[in-house]
């Protein structure tokens, strides 16, 4: 149903996809035209990725028809999709790290002859790279590329394989601001070339910056397709969230509960760690964190953020230097000892890092509480329930079904469980590692508001994030991590992407100021 009457590149009609009783997708009509960037916007669990995976042949829909260039097709596998000119760039890249960029691209080509026509492929790589700003050294090992360059290779290999339509799943999640700009320029070039682009995202700003049309999804349906020229932020939000007003958690500020300010909670003195295989070594890190303050850690992912958080939580030990918690040398403390002192951890991907999928919610709530709820050899479930009910109520979360297996909960709900557990004992130091990654807009605002509230109650908060907007919004101070070292420190008056961004990719302060 294109207004201009032209045949859309891809059209999907009456798509239904169920997972058990859950209807993940119910889409009456969805189309992508050549020469446009279509943004697929929606909160987490709205069904964006499901739709993308149906179009790429990962899932077979239970009902519905798909047309490519007006011809009805069946896409039973990613191979079929590629044959039809549909390419997808996943959130987790699918490059083979041990092979070179060239090998990765060549391997992906259809009907690659037994003797690889190196010169021809190289020539085409060079041509495409020049035209679409995707220049990467073809002989670099893919695993050694920066994340932004890996993404370029992903796009390049799809283009060389003849993709006429590209689906990008949350492509900016792993990029620094200026890298995102670069990606948008590439997308603009591809659009000019007549490709159809589907950009999956939940960031409104990106959508308004580079999309031609915006399809908003909610509860598995496309609830509206808006032209960018007519799109207003409020309208899009209303579409994303339906009639429900955006709810912020009730303010927790309780003056009676305030702790003393200005107590040094965490101090790192010249800390270095070698890190294991696949880890970024930390180099000579010195920093201080006081109660009642939020320190943000900015950086492109893979520059030592996870190692930094792990070091504070006691998962890694410093090889050199000292880690002090409330003035005590905590360099050699176990994770349990660190947690016992009042350190809470809110990681991203709760299902992988903070919950055990096979256990019930109640069992997950007791994990990590040390001996607090022990009753003899067993667990004092009644006391746990009482404490957790109080914690859920205080955070304004609905009380979950405690008997449900954690694996059955959505990402946002799991993050609530983790927050309720971690914040139940009034932690004095909170280490938040990408706490809003993968959360929808509402859950994100909730988490940010919570971190600020905990700060106001006197907790020290370390916020590690890739999202500069988030860091600017929440932090009292900002440190930039680059190649495992602290590259710079910023105070709120300098919280600007054009100042912080270059340091995230290794520019020095001086050259930037000039």
């Amino acid at each position, binding site marked *: 149903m294109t207004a201009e009457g032209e045949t859309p590149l891809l059209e999907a009609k009456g798509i239904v996809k169920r997972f058990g009783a859950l209807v993940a997708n119910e889409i009456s009509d969805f189309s992508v035209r050549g020469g446009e960037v279509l943004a697929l916007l929606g909160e987490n669990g709205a069904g964006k990725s499901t739709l993308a995976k149906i179009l790429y042949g990962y899932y077979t829909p239970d009902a519905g028809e798909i047309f490519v260039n007006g011809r009805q097709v069946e896409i039973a596998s990613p191979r079929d999709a590629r044959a039809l000119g549909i390419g997808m760039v996943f959130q987790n890249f699918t490059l083979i790290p041990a092979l070179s960029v060239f090998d990765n691209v060549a391997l992906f080509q259809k009907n690659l002859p037994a003797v690889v026509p190196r010169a021809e492929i190289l020539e085409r790589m060079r041509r495409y790279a020049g035209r679409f700003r995707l220049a990467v050294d073809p002989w670099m090992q893919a695993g050694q590329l920066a994340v932004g360059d890996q993404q370029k290779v992903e796009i390049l290999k799809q283009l060389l394989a003849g993709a006429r339509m590209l689906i990008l799943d949350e492509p900016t999640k792993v990029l620094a601001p200026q890298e995102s700009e670069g990606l948008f320029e590439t997308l603009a070039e591809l659009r000019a070339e007549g490709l159809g682009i589907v950009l999956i995202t939940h960031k409104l700003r990106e959508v308004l910056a580079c999309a031609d049309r915006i399809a908003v999804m909610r509860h598995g349906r496309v609830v509206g397709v808006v032209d960018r020229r007519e799109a207003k932020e409020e309208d899009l939000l209303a579409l994303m969230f339906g009639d429900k007003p955006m709810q912020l958690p009730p303010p927790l500020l309780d003056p009676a509960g305030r702790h003393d300010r200005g107590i040094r909670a965490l101090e790192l003195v010249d800390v270095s760690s070698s890190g294991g295989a696949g880890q970024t070594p930390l180099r000579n890190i010195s920093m201080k964190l006081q109660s009642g303050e939020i320190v943000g850690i900015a950086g492109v992912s893979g520059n030592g953020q996870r190692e930094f958080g792990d070091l504070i*939580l*006691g*998962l890694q030990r410093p090889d050199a230097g000292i880690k002090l918690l409330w003035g005590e040398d905590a360099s050699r403390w*176990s*994770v*349990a*000892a*660190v*947690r*016992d002192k009042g350190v809470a*951890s809110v*990681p991203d991907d709760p299902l*992988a*890092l*903070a*919950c*055990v*999928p*096979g*256990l*019930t919610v*109640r*069992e997950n709530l*007791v*994990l*990590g509480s*040390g001996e607090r709820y*022990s009753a003899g*050899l*067993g*667990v004092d*479930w009644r006391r746990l329930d009482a404490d957790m009910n109080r914690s859920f109520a205080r955070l304004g979360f609905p009380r979950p079904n405690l*008997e449900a297996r954690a694996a059955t909960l959505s990402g946002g709900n799991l993050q609530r469980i983790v927050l309720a557990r971690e914040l139940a004992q009034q932690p004095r130091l909170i280490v938040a590692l990408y706490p809003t990654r993968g959360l929808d807009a509402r859950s994100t605002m909730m988490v940010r508001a919570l971190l600020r509230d905990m700060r106001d109650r006197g907790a020290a908060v370390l916020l590690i994030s890739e999202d500069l907007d988030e860091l600017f919004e929440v932090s009292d101070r900002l440190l930039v991590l680059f190649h495992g070292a602290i590259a710079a420190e910023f105070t709120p008056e300098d919280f600007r992407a054009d100042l912080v961004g270059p340091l995230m990719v290794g520019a020095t302060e001086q050259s930037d100021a000039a």
Partner: protein
Amino acid sequence: MRLDGATLWACASARAKGFAFVTAAALGVFATLLVAAGKDPLEAYIDTLTYVFGNAYGFSELLVRMIPLMLTAVAAALPARIGLINVGAEGQLYMGAWLATAGALALPDLPAFVLLPLLTLLGFVGGGLWALVAGVLRALRLVNETISTLLLNYIAPLIVSYFIFGPWRSPETASYPQSPAFVEAARLPTFFHSRVHFGLVYALASLVLYWLVMTRTRIGLDMRAIGGNPEAAQRLGIPIIRYILTVMFIAGGVAGLAGMAEVTAIQGRLVSELSPGYGFIGFLVSWLAGSSAAGIVTMSFLFALISSVGDILQITQGVPYAVVNILMAVILFIVLGRHSVGSVAR
């Protein structure tokens, strides 16, 4: 923790399916072989079943076989809960028997009420330390526990052989390699004038304790957390290395009890052919039972029955006992195959 009806039913029906599958496979393979040998399978089955269930002796022999199977199955099930694969119950059984024998030969003058608890302890420690070798290697991230427990299985019977050919060789039966007979005080009591021995109490106690610990205690919760998501467990401060070492020691100890019971109750001395592969069958039992305590009892029963049937067929129909080993290998392959296909599909 609290199971609702549906989950219980799902567990029970899955176990019933496994049970039915193994029974059908066993009966089918045996029947094929019997037909090939020109015998009537139905008649052979009726013969064996009346023999096993028709009199007290047949049934008591079934129980005797179940004891080491249940113990070695617990030895496999316990590490499985924290994601470790212990295929070394056979070797742990031998080392438990070995250390218990050392005690029985060194302290023949102690009264039974002191000696038997001591031998039990020695059997436990012998198997436990043997498994702990694999546990330490795993905790240091040097060798995967599946490999090390498997290889340790080959060493343990050789250690036993060395002692019964050398230092402990019995002077009375010099032509046959075995240790001297144990004194009466070192013999584990038996029940009802049969060979069913006190090891049955060890087996049932191990199963009950295993079930209680896994479902009712903090320790069981921690273990299930490690098995379910080691990364999260570590981040939540659960001491994984301590659990690996403790669990491996206890699991090996339980297998060691099986060995101790075999030498003190059944053999009355240390012999080289102590176990017809109890440790391996126990592993199979634990896998088929899905590590559930009740499942271990039913599967042990089934496998004890299969090996009894093999025995009887050998005597009455002249079918070699190796058939049983072939059958169990086939079942193991099918079980492992089905599991890995499942995980690839996910």
